[in-house]
């Protein structure tokens, strides 16, 4: 036990300097609409992301209905199916998950968890949200544009994304999609600068990096990655916009549409787009996963009343995954026609990244070992996350291992894999996190009975959707087929399985309505929560009031004396010691 000099003349953190400059809202508009308070911006981000996410959810039902019952839903033509598919994918990955984890949880939790009064650039933070909203509106607007939204698939591969054989390719759909993405990236960059600099400069006294909760580590690393990865999508979008609007040939080779209609382009390289896209696209997976990793670590630790096992390893793993994820992008391109020797390199880097990821999984389950596990709803979601993440992560070893990928690439196996690992798993964390932090945001607990119903249906239902789907892909059914039709190698039983998956998807979808109802109902009728209902150590639970007031902490910022995981410390009277508790631990500490 090393007790370091208390109350020395350390440097004054920027958070205390910023206290003087903190912007104070004067009226209703600046308080709730054009607010510069990160907590309000967080709610705005989360609300917008949820709203557009619901659209994507409904689109997934329509797709599933077509896949399960192609004849009954003959009115869903291939055109509309591809439009639904594209919008579902793009919304879920970018406008829901990225925005919710970074814009929603990042804005709410970073200042509170590092002990800052607000983000360092509140005005830019506000702009970030409004540009994001504009991006969402442009995207939603494409539903009403002539020709409808683009049906190019969320990967937007040229040439098909901008040719006439694809819905929206020669209409407004693709243009609005590209413009919306460009806006999103601009807006995100503004927010991202805030998240990064707040973690760097806004930390309160005593909050060293190694005392940060893993939630902050996850969101911080993901933001750094996003700042460096999104420019690749930006460049790809701008260049495709040039090709589509003024007819340049960045990605467009000489092609003859429908065998008769030569296009004026010449010499462009479609593969170049894929490199740019996946240079963004692969880090994007971890941009969604790392915040989930961080949050789930804190949920498990708090609700098992035990410190997270191997905190240092967890931090190193986050950094290692973040760095490695920039050199694995071409594992999405094993059968793209790129030079086959790249396969050796990218398969190796991809499988190496499995090692730090596996370490994180081990440390989560080892945290449960000899814990005092409270099976609260956040804990249940955390356990469900581990199951689905391990499942989805392991199927990633099939697809990352270049030659095993060859028969599985572009089949339903891929769809099942990425939905399990970056759809279901992170969303389960989102739910767990909402059940965990809702009491801090509203001052009331979410209804327990509705919560448990929501958990069981969502977890078991999602597993029943996506686990069997792997086997549909193993049979050989390709993805992005609105219907497989009569195909010799597909046995009729696959159609039955498809019907089952569709029904499971509808049930899981409707369970989310219960969750939304619970969110609204509990604002008024939930059990009052108090300041620290989970008896957690981190700073957001030690605020002056609940919900935290403007400026987060009372007159003085908290000073941090310990790491974020002092649960069940031997000899201590309580089973948790808040980070800002100055009392020395009683003798008998470990090590």
């Amino acid at each position, binding site marked *: 036990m090393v007790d370091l000099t208390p109350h020395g003349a*350390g440097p004054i953190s920027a958070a205390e300097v910023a206290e003087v400059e903190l912007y104070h809202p004067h009226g209703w508009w600046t308080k709730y609409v054009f607010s510069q308070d990160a907590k309000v911006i967080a709610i705005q981000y989360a609300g917008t992301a949820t709203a557009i996410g619901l659209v994507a959810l409904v689109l997934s039902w329509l797709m599933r209905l077509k896949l399960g019952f192609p004849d009954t839903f003959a009115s869903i033509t291939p055109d509309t199916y591809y439009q639904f598919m594209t919008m579902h994918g793009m919304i879920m990955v970018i406008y829901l998950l990225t925005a919710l984890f970074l814009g929603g949880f990042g804005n709410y939790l970073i200042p509170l968890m590092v002990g800052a009064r607000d983000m360092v650039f509140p005005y830019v933070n506000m702009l970030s949200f409004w540009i994001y909203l504009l991006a969402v509106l442009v995207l939603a607007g494409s539903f009403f544009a002539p020709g409808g939204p683009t049906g190019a698939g969320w990967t937007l591969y040229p040439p098909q994304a901008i040719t006439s054989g694809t819905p929206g390719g020669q209409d407004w759909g693709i243009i609005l999609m590209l413009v919306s993405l460009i806006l999103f990236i601009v807006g995100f960059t503004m927010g991202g600068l805030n998240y990064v600099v707040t973690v760097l400069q806004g930390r309160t006294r005593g909050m060293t990096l190694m005392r940060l909760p893993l939630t902050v580590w996850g969101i911080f690393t993901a933001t750094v990655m996003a700042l460096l990865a999104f420019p*690749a999508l930006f460049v790809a979008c701008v*260049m495709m916009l040039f090709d589509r609007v003024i007819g340049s040939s960045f990605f467009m080779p000489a092609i003859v549409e429908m065998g008769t209609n030569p296009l004026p382009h010449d010499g462009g390289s479609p593969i170049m787009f894929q490199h740019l896209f996946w240079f963004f696209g692969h880090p994007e997976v971890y941009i969604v996963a790392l915040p989930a990793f961080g949050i789930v670590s804190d949920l498990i630790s708090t609700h098992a009343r035990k410190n997270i096992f191997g905190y240092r390893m967890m931090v190193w793993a986050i950094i290692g995954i973040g760095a490695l994820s920039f050199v694995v992008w071409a594992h999405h391109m094993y059968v793209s026609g790129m030079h086959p020797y790249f396969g050796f390199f990218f398969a190796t880097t991809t499988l190496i990244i499995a090692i730090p990821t596996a370490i994180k999984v081990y440390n989560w389950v080892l945290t449960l070992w000899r814990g005092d596990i409270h099976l609260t709803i956040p804990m249940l979601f955390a356990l469900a996350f581990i199951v689905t993440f391990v499942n989805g992560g392991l199927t990633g070893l099939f697809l990352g291992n270049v030659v095993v990928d060859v028969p599985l690439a572009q089949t339903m196996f891929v769809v099942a894999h990425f939905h399990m690992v970056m759809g279901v798993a992170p969303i389960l964390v989102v739910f767990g996190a909402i059940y965990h932090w809702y009491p801090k945001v509203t001052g009331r607990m979410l209804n327990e009975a509705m919560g448990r119903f929501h958990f069981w249906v969502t977890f078991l239902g999602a597993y029943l959707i996506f686990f069997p789907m792997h086997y549909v892909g193993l049979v050989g059914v390709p993805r992005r087929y609105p219907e497989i039709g009569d195909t010799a190698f597909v046995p009729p039983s696959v159609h039955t399985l498809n019907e089952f998956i569709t029904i499971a998807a509808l049930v899981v979808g409707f369970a989310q309505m219960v969750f939304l109802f619970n969110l609204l109902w509990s604002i008024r009728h939930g059990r009052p929560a108090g300041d620290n209902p989970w008896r957690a150590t981190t700073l957001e639970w030690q605020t002056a009031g609940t919900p935290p007031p403007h400026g987060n902490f009372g007159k003085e910022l908290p000073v941090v004396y310990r790491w974020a995981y002092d649960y069940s410390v031997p000899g201590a009277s309580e089973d948790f010691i808040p980070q800002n508790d100055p009392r020395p631990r009683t003798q008998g500490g470990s090590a």
Partner: protein
Amino acid sequence: MSAIVIFLALIAAVVGWWLSHQRLMSKPWLEAGPVTAFPETEASLMHPAKIGLGVFLAVVGTLFALLISAYFMRMVYADWQPAPVPKILWLNTAMLVLASIALQGAVSAAHKGQPDNLRLALLIGALASVAFLGGQLLAWRDFAAEGYFATENPATSFFYLLTAMHGLHIIGGLVALGRVNFRAWQSARSETLVLPTELCAMYWHVLLVVWVVLFCVLMGWAADLIDICRGLLT
């Protein structure tokens, strides 16, 4: 993708260097107290705006590194016909250098508390940048007059794309620089302008470096350099 991988390796080196001072090997559960023994692990005293701009410039650098990567990837195809770059780009480069020097002068004037010199330097910086943008427009006009439109050949498409991207960043910077100019003429107190002037100078220096790299790429020197390196290696 070599340009972007090299650029990100540089960023990773900077991040790694910073992380190496953050005691990532320490065991936080053994250390209680406000940890004043290790001031480097606390939030630094640098102004957040400077760090914010630094991070933003890293993002800008990534953007241009990616564009250059795309340029190199596209360059190896057979139909690539680089057009002769307009001569006026030399003059434009000189203008941007002048702007950068003027803003560096403004920083030292602000530090020394010389409001007149500060105003003059800021004004020269802004005017030189406007001249740069005007010159770029002239370059576009000349280029188009010679028949090199954006759709003519991928090489010309890239010329317009790269210069436009860089120009947009200069325009964005000019909004900030315009505000600093305005404030400098409004008040005689130069000390309040130290930070904004420093930020502008930092932004201009980086955009100058970006421009010089782009200029080398557009002139074909970068490709020559790669060929020479390849020749040396084999």
